């Protein structure tokens, strides 16, 4: 036990040489790298494989396709094999006809000379190639762009509304003295205790009564105000000096002008953090859209992906492609903004 603890806490050895605990640390981190990124890399590689290749067991790491060749006298490209027996042994041949276990092949340069062989005497010639057919098929067969639009619409609208509503409330709670302020703050805290998951039934009633069932707005509106957002923004706005506001009031600026010309620009860092969090929450939202959206044309990407795997239990080729496309936007956001995301999440403690 003590040794493990030593390993976890010791710092790097003197003189630039690595202490054995450093080796263990780097080992742990590399194992983490494999465990955290490996599954995603495997998913992405798999999505570029042909359906045949996906069925293969054991699977191969990289996507392969069988080579093909254009041969004079044949309309379609022919599959290429290496003969392992007979007079052509070791040569590259193209398969012209196949009947059961028997095959007829030609040497590509000599299409007239057909030779009969057994299928088992042929070995497929393959090369590494990323096929995009899973993706193109996805676009042709399914209304992928409809789902993409729905997801984007919900994410953008919900984020915009949330930023507006929460920042207005945070402004009032940080820059005004009025009776009932403490009560309002306590109420905001109280909403922390009411996550969506415990009020699903009444929310469903309210949304149906408002005619928002099976509508994108039914997903957007119920979650538009969040206690996290109010707190995050208020904490930041409190640090803006009151003198700036007073100066603006002297110049007869209305409170609205103060809000959007002074407060909003000055709280840009906090707003950016909240925006990133909101985008993440909304893009990945699952349970509430699952309840509200009942028709295929209104599905978000997440719901479509979920219903997809139920419908086509074994249709992995398209499913893999769609999974990759669903995780792509958020991964891009991550790559560019990961520093802000990390600080944002550390400072709010999540939702």
């Amino acid at each position: 036990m003590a040794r493990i603890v030593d390993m976890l806490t010791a710092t790097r050895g003197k003189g630039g040489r690595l202490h054995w605990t450093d080796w263990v640390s780097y080992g742990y981190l590399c194992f983490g790298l494999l465990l955290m990124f490996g599954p995603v890399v495997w998913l992405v590689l798999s999505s570029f494989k042909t359906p045949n290749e996906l069925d293969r067991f054991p699977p191969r790491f990289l996507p392969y396709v069988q080579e093909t060749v254009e041969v004079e006298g044949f309309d379609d490209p022919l599959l290429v094999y290496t003969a392992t027996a007979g007079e052509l042994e070791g040569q590259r041949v193209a398969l012209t006809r196949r009947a059961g276990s028997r095959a007829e092949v030609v040497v590509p340069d000599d299409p007239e000379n057909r030779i009969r062989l057994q299928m088992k005497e042929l070995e497929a010639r393959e090369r590494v190639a990323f096929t995009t057919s899973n993706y193109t098929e996805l676009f042709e067969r399914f209304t992928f762009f409809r789902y993409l639009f729905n997801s984007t619409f919900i994410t953008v609208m919900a984020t915009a509304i949330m930023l507006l509503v929460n920042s207005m409330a945070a402004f009032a709670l940080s820059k005004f003295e009025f009776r009932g302020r403490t009560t309002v703050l306590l109420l905001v805290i109280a909403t922390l205790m009411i996550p969506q998951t415990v009020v699903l039934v009444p929310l469903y009633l309210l949304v149906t009564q408002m005619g928002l069932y099976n509508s994108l707005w039914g997903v957007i509106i119920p979650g538009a105000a969040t206690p996290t957002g109010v707190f995050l923004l208020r904490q930041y706005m409190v640090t803006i000096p009151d003198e700036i506001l007073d100066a603006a009031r002297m110049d007869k600026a209305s409170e609205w002008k103060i809000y959007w010309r002074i407060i909003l620009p000055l709280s840009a860092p906090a707003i950016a953090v909240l925006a990133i969090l909101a985008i993440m929450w909304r893009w990945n939202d699952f349970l509430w859209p699952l309840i509200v959206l009942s028709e295929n044309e209104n599905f978000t990407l997440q719901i479509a992906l979920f219903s997809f795997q139920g419908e086509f239990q074994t249709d992995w080729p398209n499913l893999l492609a769609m999974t990759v496309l669903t995780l792509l936007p958020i991964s891009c956001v991550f790559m560019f903004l990961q520093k802000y995301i990390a600080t944002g999440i550390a400072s709010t403690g999540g939702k």
Partner: protein
Amino acid sequence: MLRVIAPVMNVIELPFRWLQRRLGLKLIAWVFLLPNILLFGLFAFLPVILNVFYGMTGGTDVMLADRPNVGAANFERLLSCDNYLDPNSCRDDKFWRAVYNTIWFVTLQVGFMVGFALITALVLNRKIRARGFFRSVFFFPVLLSPVVVALIWKWILQREGILNAFLDWLNGTWAIEGLSAVIVALGGTALSVQGIAWITDAGWAFFWSVFISVWAHMGFYTLILLAGLQAIPRDVYEAATMDGASAFRTLRRITLPLLAPTMLVVVILALIKGVQTFDEVYAFTGGGPGTATTFIIQYIYEEGFAGQPRLFGLAAAASILLALVLVVLTGIQLWLNRRSVDG
């Protein structure tokens, strides 16, 4: 973007100026608060009250006026058990299975997750190269959607997936023998590595549910713990080194005690989220096989929305019971952060 927003904001300003002249500076604050309060009232507080009415009524109608009053019948159905430790003896055995699954799941998930998050945070807090890179590596899965997480692992764990291929390749070596021995020692059955059905075997499905949940959320807690570690003042460590304290002693006497408040916050946060686990496990196993990975939120979802008939009353009653647990946990969380809240 400002070009779109600016005119809108200017238009809003006119009625606002008028309002401000009429109401004065004190009341204008309420105008700013109004949209947020309306949304909270309508979609948080009103539902809490409605939830109680749903919990006390039966039938399958959504409209409260059409629902017959049944008193505490829904709660009685959920809570009547001959023996609370045995779901089979309960009137609603599915509910109790979900409750026990959730308790087991939360215990294992929070334990492993916080444990690994702590180890990872301690390693990341050392003087290592590429720290920022490794920090984001562990954080990356946090951003993935629950459905994507479920599908990534389903693809790895499917019968002809890469994990089974890997085990097949290792078959007969000491690694498999050893692993098998460990599983037997833990009370499982010996591994036969020929195409294990990871998702349709009850025990494995539960194991992997815990695993993917830890995988997906660990980075988040690592980040919070790392922030806690970095907040510990350097000079405390310098003093310890001066006094010749061993690394083990430094960890036990300095790091862990000073990290304790952060640890507590992390554990409570993890419990709050763990109790509400639904998305990734539902997409991963669908709650199965049988009810092996059905948790409390799935019970609510299935009784109220997915099943026929839709038993809104039962779903509401179950969510009230869940809410009680969450209120206690959130209360502890707020009490822990009380200094940072009243600012």
